């Protein structure tokens, strides 16, 4: 597992990085997210331990964990996973990534991200042109915006 390129890592960044503190609300949101994406305790532990080691130890506290607001909004976007179109959108995104030019690093990062959401297979099918032709992606769902930035579909500044 590529811990740094996962939605849960992104959630931890939202929770911690605004003011270097983690609120109780954020902890509950992280628990909710873990359940929604079906993340195992062991995988979560691995991600969190790496996050602490690589990020948290270098933070300086400047508040009381106000990152929970951004995190709450992010967790809300997970409803996309219940959307019947999520499979097709993921496949279309894979194709778009390939058309944009996909390096090994981008493939690994984006596939890792999509896999944690349970969308790794359609995404891979889109990239590798497996099965039926994927459609065009009209709009990137909020949940996938971070990975869309990773693969260059959206500018990092947007």
């Amino acid at each position, binding site marked *: 597992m590529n811990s740094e390129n996962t939605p849960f890592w992104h959630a931890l960044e939202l929770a911690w990085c605004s003011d270097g503190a983690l609120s109780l609300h954020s902890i509950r949101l992280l628990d909710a997210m873990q359940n929604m994406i079906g993340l195992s305790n062991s995988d979560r532990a691995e991600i969190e331990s790496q996050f602490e080691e690589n990020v948290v130890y270098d933070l300086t506290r400047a508040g009381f964990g106000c990152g929970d607001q951004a995190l709450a909004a992010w967790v809300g976007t997970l409803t996309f996973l219940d959307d019947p179109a999520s499979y097709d959108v993921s496949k279309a995104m894979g194709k778009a990534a*390939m*058309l944009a*030019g*996909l*390096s*090994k690093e981008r*493939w*690994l990062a984006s596939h890792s991200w999509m896999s944690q959401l349970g969308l790794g297979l359609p995404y*891979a*099918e889109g*990239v*590798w*042109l*497996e*099965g039926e032709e994927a459609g065009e992606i009209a709009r990137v769902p909020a949940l996938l915006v971070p990975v869309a930035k990773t693969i260059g579909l959206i500018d990092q500044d947007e």
Partner: protein
Amino acid sequence: MWLIEMLAPEQILHAAMILSVESEDGKDEGLISQVQETLECDAEDHEAAMSHIENHRDGGNWGGRREAVLHRSRERVREAMENDTLPSTGQLSDALNTLVGEDDDGEIDPFAELGVASGGMGGSFGANNVSTSDPLSAFMDDDDEEEEDLVDGDGFLASESTLNLDGEVIEEEVTEPEIEEQPVAEEVEVEEPPEEEVPATTPNVAYEMLMSTCWIDGILDPAEAKLLARKRDELGISFEQHLEMLQSMLERSS
């Protein structure tokens, strides 16, 4: 039923002569005479082999296939030494070992570097019959239906017999009377080929090799993705297998 051809003495002599002619020191008549005597080849065999070499040598270029011809010659001599057709100990053996041990001019075999074993590796001349394991054959362009082989109707190297896409020998009508007078190969019937001769993973290895070339410029592009999709279909590789191979390839390269 499979047929495995054993090397004929004149083929071994021919291979040894090629190596001798192409060695740094040039042709060693003394060594060739010893080989000829050991193999019980007559002067006619020697003359036929020498004539063949002169006709095909092309100034040492062998029609652009020098390395392949030398490689196959080494294989033949090694095989003859392994099955005691040629001595594996003694002075002659030492001289032959020197010949076959010569490096390929320092050239690097890119497929060996990729860890892809060719169908002929470790096999005999006769093992051409099972050269379907050549992973590269799967990637011949569909329009390029034929590939030249190194072995001609006499069993000598560098001529015109051909292999099809799958590496199978395309039957040619070779009606040279010499073949009847001098049986080229002794045919031995074998009920089932040993599994080692045709690795079951060959399509996977071939596919992985192709896959590794897709990121050679750092970026996967649509043409490469399409090619891989087509090859998966042709080689019967599932998408799940593709993802597993891709993962293991990337893990190895990281």
